[in-house]
């Protein structure tokens, strides 16, 4: 093939430009540590990366939800623990005063203590978290336990659930409502006080004691349920964090540079560039004119 001068020079220019462009790309990849800098670098990868990023955001939010649920459950469980202690104390008083022939004065003194226990139980029922009442269902801005008469409590909340979403489509109720958790105990305590003041040890040691025991059992059952839910949240949280680690790995694989490979590419391109420059300089200098006088 006949070679014209411009052919060589145009070829040099084109090749040097190609090497420069490749060098620039290598540099960009190494300095940004990203191999996926625009969708056209890897269209399917870009779509997958978008999905992974969204999933990570969603997972992080579920973790936050789980944490919030845990707080609610733990505080509820603690309040119910104290309620259980109050009920035990009341039971001791009942047993102590249930035998016939007790002085009314002693019974009245016991009744006063029951009054205090009732107040304590009501306060526990009105426990709050950041301005919201734990046991009010969804009517969280008003105290769920209110007194309509001496020792006569009433539940003012609703039966709504505090729903926490811990995975797509998976929810968990983080609360228990005062009507099932506190009202049986408060009603039983009210009856105890009435019986003590009336001196009705017969009823006290039979029907009322049964009510009190039933309330205690109820509280224990609810605490067990809350504990089970807390365990479920724990498991969910761990699962979510593991999933995020896996997703992060996936994102890295799609988006990030393989540094070793990128540096090798950079080296190789640089060597090729130098070689091209050297050869171009040598070949360009050969001309017949140098040899003619």
């Amino acid at each position, binding site marked *: 093939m*006949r070679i014209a001068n411009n052919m060589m020079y145009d070829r040099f220019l084109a090749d040097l430009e190609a090497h420069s462009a490749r060098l620039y790309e290598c540099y960009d990849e190494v300095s940004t540590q990203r191999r996926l800098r625009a969708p056209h670098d890897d269209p399917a990868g870009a779509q997958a990366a978008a999905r992974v990023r969204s999933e990570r955001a969603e997972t992080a939010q579920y973790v936050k939800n789980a944490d919030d649920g845990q707080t609610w459950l733990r505080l509820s469980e603690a309040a119910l623990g104290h309620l259980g202690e109050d009920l035990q104390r009341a039971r001791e008083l009942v047993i102590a005063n249930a035998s016939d022939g007790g002085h009314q004065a002693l019974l009245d003194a016991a009744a006063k203590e029951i009054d205090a226990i009732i107040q304590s139980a009501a306060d526990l029922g009105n426990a709050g978290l950041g301005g919201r009442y734990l046991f009010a269902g969804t009517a969280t801005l008003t105290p769920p336990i209110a007194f309509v008469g001496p020792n006569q409590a009433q539940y003012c909340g609703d039966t709504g659930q505090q729903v926490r*979403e811990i995975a797509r489509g998976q929810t968990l109720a983080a609360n228990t409502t005062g009507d099932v958790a506190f009202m049986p105990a408060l009603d039983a305590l009210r009856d105890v006080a009435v019986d003590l003041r009336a001196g009705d040890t017969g009823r006290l040691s039979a029907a009322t004691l049964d009510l009190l025991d039933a309330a205690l059992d109820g509280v224990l059952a609810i605490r067990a349920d809350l504990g089970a839910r807390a365990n479920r949240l724990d498991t969910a949280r761990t699962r979510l964090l593991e999933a995020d680690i896996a997703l992060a790995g996936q994102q890295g694989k799609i988006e990030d540079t393989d540094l070793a490979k990128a540096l090798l590419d950079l080296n190789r391109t640089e060597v090729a560039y130098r070689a091209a420059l050297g050869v171009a300089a040598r070949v360009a200098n050969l001309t017949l004119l140098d040899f003619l006088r």
Partner: protein
Amino acid sequence: MRSSFVGLETGLRALLAHRRAIDVIGHNIANSATPGYSRQVVELQTTPPYGVAGAGLDLDAGLVGTGVAVTDIVRVRTAFLDRQYRQAGASFGDAGARRAALEAVEAALGEPSDNSLRAALDRFWDAAQGVATNPETLPPRAALWEAATDVVNTCNLTWQRLSDQRLWLDDKLRGRAGELDALIQEAASLNRAIVTVKNGGGSPNDLLDKLDRVIDTMADIAEVRVVARESGAQAVYIGGAMVADEWGFSTLEVINDPQNGNLAALRWAGSAAPADLGRGELSALIEVRDHEMNQYLDDLDALVQALVQSANAVHQAGFGLDGSTGLDLFDPASVGGHMALNTAVGADLRRIAASATGPPGDGENARALAGLRAQPLLNGSTLNDYLGGMIARLGVDTAAAISGEDGARLLQEQVDTQRQSVSGVSLDEETTNLLRYQQAYAAAARYIAAVDEMLRILTGNIQ
């Protein structure tokens, strides 16, 4: 009987011819770096021999030559290679226009990053969950409002950038159309000059080079075909219509098309039909501007409307902290590029309808709003998947345009190398030929001296 002065004439012809050859070599060397220059070669031929057979003529020993003359200065160029180069140019212009436009769309959509529309949507869904977990207080609501504002702003900004891209393409289109028009006029005037020179018996080599360069430049912009004529003119056809020859040219008009938002439309002067420009940068610009860009704008608009309608439906069904219900979260008149929030809700964030049944601790409606993230709201896909599909499609199209451009450029370079091989100046070749003609010139001069000496002997001038 032979004339005594024949030798002088032969020598003179040699001097003139070789001098002309050296001039042409000089022209080649001077233009060895000129882009688009085709080397020129003298055609040397023997002049008609002395002594034609006929009655009454004394035939000596055969016919005697009478010297050399330059019969033509030939421009070395292959039309076939030019045709190939221009075809590659059409592909290059087409792919180049697409690549530039699509890369700008990629920049507008901004993936993969944390600042894209998809990321803003994710933050919106998360903020809704935040309200679902804590519906009674204002800070999560403020965060939701902030996230919603971010979504609205990002949608509008993205739409605006795509729309601006259309205008930029239109500007480029107008510019290139103007350039094409200028090139067409230049082709016509060069054709006129070429025909004039040819008619005068000359070889308009440099003019032809210039015309070829003009046509090469045109070939990137529109699909060009050249028909060589007897008269020497190179008639230029674009898309089947003749646009420039030695008699005149067609003008490419740019008009504002009212049916296309007053964007540019191209017509040949005197015709009402849109100009058929074949494959090339102009038609690619028109197609991307009117087809691809509109596609992306429509897709974005569909996404905005789907989001607004479904979010509003959920929001209307819920209750705010102040008991209000039936309110929209987004302005229902939102369309792509003009998306907005409902200012009535923004004025009092308690109106954000987080509750499904009314009580303040109920965040189920906010959770339903967050749940839209997983709902197939648009063409059976979730909004996030829809965006992901757009990004993938865009990536594929852009990658294709980039590789198309690279391929076309490589092809052009290859064809150009072949053209250079045929038409390019090789300094070594010219230098060698220069030696050759120099020697011949020197020898011819020596020959004239010899003949001169002989004549002097004859005429007794030598003492």
